[in-house]
Structures are given as C-alpha cells and as structure tokens.
C-alpha cells in the first residue's frame, strides 16, 4: 500500500473513529458531513413547502369565497382576518409570501441545498464537499433566514405585501402598502439566504471541478450532477445582482436613498431590470436540477442509456447561457423601450430550443426501452409531461403582442405552476423517493407512493390547467376579490372549482408525509443498489458511511450503461472493471454439512 493510500485509509479510519466519539451536537446539528447537511436542508425545505402550501390554501379560500369567513380563520389576529375574513392587505401578504417561501425556502433549497449536497460528492466519488465547514455555514445561514421570513408575519404592519417580485415604488416605501418592518425583514432574510446560496455554489463548483474520482471525466458525470454544477454557476453569478438590488431597496426604505423612488430622481424600472436580470437565471436555477434528476430517473426506469447524453449536457449549458439574455421578457409591458421588447422576444423564442431538445431526448430515452413503472420513474414521467405543458405555454407569453393580453393574468400563473410544480416539484418527489435509501437506509412504500402520485397528478392538473382559461378570459393576478370586476363574475364557478381541487391536492400530500416518516423507521431495509442503477452512490451502503467510499472509486464508463452488452444484467455500475480487467470470482467454499 502506498503512503498515500495509507494516508487516505488513515483518514477514513480516523473519520470512523471520530464518528463514534463526536457529540450529538457535532454529529447532527453542527455537522460538516454533506449527507447530514443535505438532510437538514431537506427537513427545513419540506417544512417551508408545507407553510407555502398553507398560505396558498388561504389565498384559494379568498378567491373561491371572497370575503367569507375562512374555516379556522378565527385563530388569526384582527390585523390579518377580523372575524375570519381575510383583509386585502393580508391577502397581498399571502400572495407575496407564498411565492417567496416556495421559491426561496422550498424549491431552491430542496433542489440545490438538499439534492446538491446529497448527490454531488457521492456521484463524483468524493468523500465529502471541498469545504465541509463552509457547507455547514451554508445551512446555518439559510435556516435563520427562513425563520426571519416567518417572523415577519408577526411584526406590526404584517409581512411583505408587494409580491415576490417586490416592484418599486410599491415596495420602497411603507406608505404605499402599510407594511414597514415586514418588507425590510423580507429584504434582510433574502440577503442572508443569498450568502447561504453563494457559499453552496462555491462549494459545489470546486468539488465538481477538483474532486472527481479517477476515471470520472466530465462526460461520465450523471446529469443530476451536471445540472447542479451548471446551476451553481448561475447562482454564483446571479445572486450577487439580487443582493445589490435588495440592499438598494433596503436603503430606499430605511435611510432615505432614492434608487427606485422617482420623487428623488430614482428609476422604478431599474429595480425591474436588476430583479429580472437575477430573476430569469433564477427560474433556470429552479428547473435545471429537476431536469437532471428527471434524466437519472428516466434512464433508470427505461433501462436504457440517456438518449443524446452530450446533447443533454449542451442543452443544460445552452439554457444557462441563454438565460442571461432574456430577462426583459418579464418587462414587455413595463414601459421600457419597445425596441428592447423585440430583442428580448427573439432571445426568448430561442431559449425554447434547448428545452425542446431535452424533451425530445427524454422521449428518445423511453423509445425502445424496458420501462419499469416504479414511483420515482412515475414522477420523472410526470415531470416530462407537465414540463411539456409549461414550456409550450411559455411560447404564448414570449410573443410580445400576445403578452400584451396575457401578462399579469392567470395564464402566467398557470405557466409558472406547470414548470415549478408540474416540473420541479414532481422531480423532487421522484428524487426523494429514489434516493431515500441513501438518506435513511430504507425504501419508501411503493403502493402508497403510487397512490400519492396518481392523486397528486389528478388534483394538480385540476387546479392549474383551468388557470390558463380564466387568464385568457382576462382574470388578472393578485386580485383580492375578483368579483369586484363584473366581467370576471362568470369565472367565479371556475375559481371555486380550482379552490376545492387545491384543498384536495394539499390533503393528498399527507399520503407522502406519512409514507415518508413511516418509511424512515418502518420501511423495508435497502441494500446498496435497490433500483439497479449505475452511478457511484449505488456502489456504497445505504446509507453511506462518513467519508462515503472505503476506497477511492475508479470509474470506467458513463452512468447510463443500462442494457449494455458488456453486462449480464440490465445495468452496469460505473466502477465495475471491464471484462478483460476483472478478477476471476473466488470459488465459493461449500457450506458445512448440517449447517
């Protein structure tokens, strides 16, 4: 054994030794193990996902039954819902916080904080992240940021109420919304979260570049890692822009600067440019990891290599790159120079192309496959089918003249939710189910997983598909009481339908919650590779020990060599040596008589 091998061996042994001896606080609370940090992000984000969902339920109540007392509304204070009837200002806060919490404290930390932390070191073959303590800091910045965001509900004036997009001047001065401290806490919370995201991005980028196992060339990385790597670059470059904007807005609110206040010579449109220059890459941050996860799930389900792996990588890079030059499509009607509308429309049209390429490649992966409909695969398929709808609906709004009509209507809301829920969230459900063994050593219940999937698919579509229609009839966004517009009154039955479907949708999520927690303790024990997959995380025990790999893995091939002629099985681990390099199997010693 070389000295280096001994050194690595020592290090692993030392870790194990340390593993038994470190106090609870160091092992589970202030942990530097990426798998523990992943779990922390997961639990935090799932909690916020529930909070975001409950906020949406309150919104849906008001939309379905405007100004009627909400069941359970009596527990809300007078400042939010006197007599259980939601106030308009509280409704605006609900709208704002639903979006903010879902995007920043649920989806983003699930995809990036949770899956990034769990998968990257395992899939590249590293013992941990490049900077484990920075990783710990990343979680311990995100969590307080989330608490601060929740706390803003309790301050005088309530939580931020200017939309998750926080347009100035509405957001720049409390006199316009009645919200003072709440808006400031919103800004501070997101700034702190920004630091968390940046720390994560630095870690992920360095780890993927420098900690790939021997033989793990760039084009042997699973698409989940590829997508997380590219996403991290987007985070690295986009979050600082948001930070600058948040700080400028905070200064406008608190110390009297006038960046976005026309009264002091400022420019409201500057906020929009800054916000969307961040905001558009942000939406790709929210979808790319989901695409990567979906790829891993679908290839696994179809028992086939990913169709067009190189094209898939190029498409991820293409989406990320083009994502920087389309931000103005959120501002077509903003009053900015119409010429810019034309240029942004053209760039926006083209960003449809790499997304389409990916969709065709997923179909190509299924073609000629041997498709096993496990729960993770079902979620991956849901991702593709729902993303098709969300992506196609985007083409309508990409066309500037059509956007004149549908901008700021429920058509946009439908689009957003098809890509974020139909896309990202289904991929998240699928990913949690798929990698559950690596988290807890057990496997989630298949039957209940499928039941959850079917019911979610049904109710989810019942909630969001009709939103295309009411948007096309002219139903605007963020309306406390649509019935104040006479022409929207005929759409009320549809609002009621959507509301009831939404209640059923969230109720059905209980199945997932129960399955999740039940499976942690009572689930069937899982071996290292219950799904017969190929990437490195499936070569180690479920869950992997501290340090992940007992010996440094050596990689011989890509991660999608399903049904390869080189293997007797329909899968072939990345670390299995090629036939000509394999050691002959040792002869099994016969069992003693009578044993």
């Amino acid at each position, binding site marked *: 054994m070389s000295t280096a091998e001994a050194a690595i061996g020592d290090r692993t042994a030392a870790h194990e030794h340390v593993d038994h001896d470190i106090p609870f606080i160091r092992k589970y609370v202030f942990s530097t193990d990426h798998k523990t940090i992943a779990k922390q992000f997961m639990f935090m984000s799932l909690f916020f996902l529930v909070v975001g969902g409950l906020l949406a339920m309150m919104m849906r109540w008001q939309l379905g039954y405007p100004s009627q007392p909400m069941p359970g509304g009596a527990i809300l204070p007078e400042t939010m819902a006197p007599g259980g009837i939601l106030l*308009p*200002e509280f409704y605006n806060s609900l709208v704002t916080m639903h979006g903010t919490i879902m995007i920043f404290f649920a989806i983003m930390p699930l995809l990036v904080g949770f899956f990034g932390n769990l998968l990257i070191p395992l899939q590249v073959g590293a013992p941990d992240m490049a900077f484990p303590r920075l990783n710990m800091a990343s979680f311990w910045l995100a969590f307080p940021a989330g608490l601060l965001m929740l706390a803003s509900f309790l301050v005088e004036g309530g939580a931020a109420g*200017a939309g998750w997009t926080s*347009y100035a*001047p509405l957001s720049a001065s409390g006199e*316009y919304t009645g919200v003072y401290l709440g808006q400031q806490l919103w800004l501070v919370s997101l700034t702190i979260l920004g630091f968390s995201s940046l720390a994560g991005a630095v870690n992920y980028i360095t780890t993927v570049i420098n900690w790939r196992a021997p033989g793990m060339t760039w084009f042997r990385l699973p698409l989940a890692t590829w997508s997380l790597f590219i996403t991290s670059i987007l985070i690295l470059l986009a979050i600082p822009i948001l930070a600058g904007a948040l700080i400028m807005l905070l200064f406008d609110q608190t110390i009297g600067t006038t960046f976005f206040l026309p009264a002091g010579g400022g420019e*409201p449109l500057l906020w929009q440019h800054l916000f969307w220059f961040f905001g558009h890459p942000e939406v790709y941050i929210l979808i790319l990891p989901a695409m990567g996860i979906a790829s891993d799930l679908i290839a696994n389900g*179809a028992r086939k*290599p*990913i*169709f067009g*792996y190189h*094209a898939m990588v190029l498409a991820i890079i293409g989406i990320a790159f083009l994502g920087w030059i389309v931000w103005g499509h959120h501002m077509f009607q*903003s*009053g900015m120079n119409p010429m810019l*509308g*034309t240029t942004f*429309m053209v760039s926006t*049209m*083209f960003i*449809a*192309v790499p997304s*389409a*390429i990916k*969709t065709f*490649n997923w179909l*190509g992966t*299924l*073609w*000629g*496959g*041997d498709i096993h*409909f496990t729960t993770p695969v079902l979620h991956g*398929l849901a991702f593709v*089918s729902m993303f*098709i709808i969300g992506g196609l609906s985007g*083409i*309508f709004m*990409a*066309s*500037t*003249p*059509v956007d*004149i*009509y549908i901008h*700021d*209507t429920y058509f946009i809301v439908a689009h957003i939710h098809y890509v974020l829920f139909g896309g990202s969230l289904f991929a998240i459900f699928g990913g949690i189910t798929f990698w559950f063994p690596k988290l807890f050593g057990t496997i989630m219940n298949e039957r209940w997983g499928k039941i959850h999937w079917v019911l979610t698919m049904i109710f989810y579509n019942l909630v969001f598909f009709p939103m295309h*229609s009411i948007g*096309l*009839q*002219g139903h*605007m*966004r963020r309306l*406390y*009481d649509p019935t104040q517009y*006479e*022409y929207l009154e005929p759409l009320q039955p549809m609002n009621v339908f959507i509301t009831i479907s939404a209640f059923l949708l969230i109720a059905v999520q209980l199945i997932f919650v129960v399955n999740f927690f039940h499976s942690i303790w009572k689930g069937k024990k899982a071996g290292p590779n219950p799904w017969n997959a190929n990437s490195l995380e499936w070569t180690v025990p479920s869950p992997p020990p501290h340090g992940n790999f007992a010996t440094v893995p050596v990689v011989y091939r890509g991660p999608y060599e*399903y*049904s390869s002629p080189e293997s007797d099985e*329909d899968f072939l681990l990345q670390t299995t040596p090629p036939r000509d390099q394999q050691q002959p199997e040792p002869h099994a010693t016969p069992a003693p008589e009578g044993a």
Partner: protein
Amino acid sequence: MSWMLPESFSTFGGDIDRIYYIILWITGIAFFLSEGILVYFLFRYRHKEGRKAKYVHGNTRAEIVWTAGTALIVFIVGMLSIGVWSRVRTQLPQDAMEVIVSAKQFEWNVTYPGQDGVIGTEDDFTKRNEVHAVVDRPIIAYLRAEDVIHSFFLPDLRVKQDAVPGMETPVWFEATETGEYVVGCAELCGLGHYRMAGTLTVHTAADYQAWEQAEIQAAGQ
C-alpha cells in the same frame, strides 16, 4: 375550460388574436404529438418478461433535425410577432384624440382636452374612472402614475401598458364598436388593487360631442 379568446373590439385586437391562434395551433399540435408519443411509448415499451431495452446512445441526425425544426418554428413565431408589436407599440397614429390617464391608488384620473381640443391646457377637465373614446377613431392615452406602478388594462381591446411614476408612456388604441368596456388595473398596486375598475365608453362621434359638451358645461360651473 376554453382556449378561445373573448371577442376583441379594437383594430389591432384582431392581429394580436391571430398570433395567439397561430401559436395555439402550433403548440396544440406539439402538445398532442409529444404527449401522444410519450403515452404510446409508455404503453409500447412497458416492461414485459424477456423484453430487452435497445442499447442506443442517441442519434446525431435526429438531434440536428429536431433542433433545427424547433428553431425554425420559434423563429417564425417571432417574426410574425415583430410586425404586430411594432404596429402596436412604436407607431403612434396620426390625428388621434389625446387624453392623459393618471393612475393612483386606487383610481384612474382621465384628463380630456376640453374646448380647445388640446391636451395640457387650462380648459382640460378630468373624470374619475371614466375613459371616453370615439368609435373608429384612434386615441392616445398618455399614462402616468402618481404613486406606484399600475397597469392600464382594457381586456376587450387587447390594451395593456404599465403606468410608472416618473414616466409618461403613450398607449394607443382604436375601438371598432360602440359600447361599454372594462378598465382594469393589471399590476399589484396595494391593498385596493382589486377595486381599481373603471369604464371605457366608446361613443359614436355625435354622442361623444354631446357628452363632451355636457362635461365642459359642468366643468365651467
């Protein structure tokens, strides 16, 4: 649950709607094709005893074809849209009526030119939440905002433009039928955003004259 648009009542409404329907056709076909293929594959290639998946890594020619195809389609949609956008946004009509629409929390204040027919003079008069126009005659509304961003939305005429404080943004339209239409606010502007409804009344030329005279009289008193 309809993908049809409600009827439009402006000159460029038809153009906008046409682009919408073209996109609807294209995306509709794409939707049924792709989802159809997806469902078909799931059925055709579902796991069966003895089935072996094709060990295929891709097909470069297919990639090129569907990439080029998609790019061509979106390019066409873009090109079709540019003309309409330009007509609606950058080409203000000559010989149009002019009004100033000043949005504030939570109402629309519309200023009319008054007797001298020129906007911005002493004899202008202002109405709350009432936009008046003449059928088959273009009108330019100069949008302003006193406090926060609002958005001037005339769904039936396919008009939408943000009113931004510190800016004056012209938006024009030409109504094709007399009648009363809704004016709405399409940008979150505070707690009263939901009740910023107004009315657009499209008159015949004669009716408009009569209305205008009555208003001028009333304003003079």
